[in-house]
């Protein structure tokens, strides 16, 4: 056997040729470095003195330079509350909005996976029309918003039946599901302005409540989409059996369905948690001082401090360490959840 052949041909179907193995492992190690190097660079930068940065790059702690905790001290001790408050905001907003999105989204997904809905197209059009009229009335003619809302609601209830009689077409579960998921296509910036005005009107601007409510809605489509796919795989028998055993729908949902969908809940929950944790645009619109979250704080370093890389590195590390830790802990679930979403579409 020639040397070339030995190098390029695998010994068996399940193994690689020596040359192939070199290429494959080479590629994997190269990409590992692409992934790790930026993280490594932030880590060491957070331990550098300003002189280590400005004098040109130094690469190896203890060899090139002596690590120093001054940046960490500055962020935690000197700034103290100014760091702590956004950090706490981020934690509260991310956790609460994730919990709410998971609860509300799972309930909606379950409902869609088990019951048949047939909303009248006419009612929906009527609702949108009244909504538009109400906005014009409030914004254009200065009608107080609560009067407009009450009038619109009353008109809707009065006219819905009549509208349903004139136009019989109705939608199905698939349409509702698509409608909810399609909210994800909506760029958040389109909704951000009116939401900003809305919260300003009710005096909730720059509060955690505003961020929690908004994040919950923004992440609902993902929860509904992924959880729907998990719920349809749970056999209906179990729920029918439980209903004959005497359980109410609520007891079935919380006692049978949710525990069985746990892998899906973990995967989806983690995904939503990370999205909420990292969210930037809406936080930028809706928070200024009180409810400021970490991404906004980090981004603001740009303007206030210029390139003080050592402080920024500490802040970035503070943001990504918990997430990376969670990811390592639960990554098996995430991959599964993402695949489900992508495959089922």
């Amino acid at each position: 056997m020639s040397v070339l052949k030995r190098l390029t041909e695998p010994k068996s179907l399940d193994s690689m040729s020596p040359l192939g193995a070199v290429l494959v492992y080479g590629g994997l190690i190269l990409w590992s470095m692409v992934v790790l190097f930026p993280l490594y660079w932030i880590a060491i930068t957070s331990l550098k003195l300003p002189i280590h940065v400005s004098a040109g790059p130094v690469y190896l702690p203890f060899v090139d330079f002596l690590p120093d905790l001054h940046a960490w001290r500055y962020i935690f001790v000197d700034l103290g509350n100014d760091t702590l408050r956004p950090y706490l905001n981020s934690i509260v907003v991310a956790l609460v909005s994730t919990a709410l999105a998971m609860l509300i989204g799972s309930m909606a997904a379950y409902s869609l996976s088990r019951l048949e809905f047939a909303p009248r197209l006419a009612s929906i059009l009527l609702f949108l029309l009244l909504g538009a009229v109400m906005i014009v009335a409030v914004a254009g003619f200065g009608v107080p918003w609560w009067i407009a809302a009450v009038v619109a609601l009353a008109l809707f209830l009065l006219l819905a039946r009549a509208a349903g009689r004139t136009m019989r077409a109705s939608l199905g579960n698939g349409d509702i599901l698509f409608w909810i998921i399609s909210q994800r296509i909506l760029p958040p910036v389109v909704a951000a302005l009116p939401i900003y005005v809305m919260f300003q009107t009710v005096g909730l601007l720059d509060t955690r409540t505003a961020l929690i409510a908004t994040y919950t809605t923004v992440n609902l489509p993902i929860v509904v989409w992924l959880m729907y796919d998990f719920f349809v795989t749970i056999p209906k028998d179990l729920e029918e059996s439980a209903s004959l055993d005497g359980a109410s729908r609520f007891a079935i949902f919380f006692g049978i369905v949710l525990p069985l969908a746990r892998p899906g809940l973990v995967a989806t929950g983690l995904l939503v948690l990370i999205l909420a944790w990292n969210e930037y645009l809406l936080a930028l619109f809706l928070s200024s001082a009180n409810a400021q979250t970490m991404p906004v704080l980090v981004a603001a370093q740009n303007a206030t401090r210029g390139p003080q890389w050592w402080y920024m590195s500490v802040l970035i590390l503070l943001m990504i360490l918990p997430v990376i830790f969670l990811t390592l802990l639960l990554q098996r679930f995430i991959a599964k959840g993402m695949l489900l979403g992508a495959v089922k579409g």
Partner: protein
Amino acid sequence: MTIILDQTSKSFGSVEVLRALSLEVKPGEFLVLLGASGSGKTTALRMIAGLESVTSGRILIGSRDVTHVLPKNRDVAMVFQSYALYPHKTVFENIAYPLTVRKRPKAEIEKSVRDVAQQVQLDHLLERYPRQLSGGQRQRVALARAIVRRPSAFLMDEPLSNLDAKLRGHMRAELKHMQHELGITTIYVTHDQIEAMTLAHRVAILERGVLQQLDTPANIYNRPANLFVAGFIGSPPMNVLEGSLADGRFDCSAGSFGTASRASGRAVVAGLRPEDGRLAPPGQGQLAGEIYASELIGDHTLVTCRCGGATVTVKADKDFAGSIGQPIGIGFEERAVHLFDKASGERLQ
């Protein structure tokens, strides 16, 4: 408790799966709903359970009209084909579930579950999870969960069909014994006629949403109400010969014979069960034909003959020796012949 279906119908859109079904199950009775898939038997059961809405008609359990009552308030227990055990609960928790959702006292639950577990020989497995059990054990857990709260009726949807043949026979006997002991009204759905015949006090045969016959297993076998039931019950199925009836005599291309009927001048179908026929030398017997195939089953031989345009199967001795193509006669007691009207399929006499 009595269960009554009164002119109960079910449609899915324009498809009618159950047409005006009326039947009455007596207290303590074991009733089997038998039919092929798509006959509406499972739909009927699920309507009694409340899992399927009723399009028209009503359902009574005891003296209660439960047509629009939620499943959880009907006081019936159901055993599913898949057993529907909760995978995240232990055997104990599974059996206890009907009691825990009703918020019974802990001590009572503990006692009832242990009693029932003993009854179905599960007491050593209470801490296991369903995935750690064999098929037969899972089946027992499902039964125990149904028994534990003493419902007014059992509903069973093909509960044995996921077991292998040997275990199925064993569980069949246990099920019958248990139902007898408990004396609880039971409605049992199956497509397996052996299960139906062996378990039931009475069998209801459904086809395309219509009740064909409701009677004891013996009567169903001996006096099938129509051609469908005649062909559905019995293995191998009843032989059928198309012909005409004149002055009580049946006449077809393979031969003619007298019958108990006095009707005359109409197209009929005569039915003969394979075990009622016997093989005879050519020229003897009422029918003439030739051997098409013979199969040794074990304690008997099935001989299939071509008689005119029809095929007639006869159960013969296990040492029957005949060659294919050999001419042969078929004889039988004339009162063993079943007569059906050809147009309607209904039984004559």
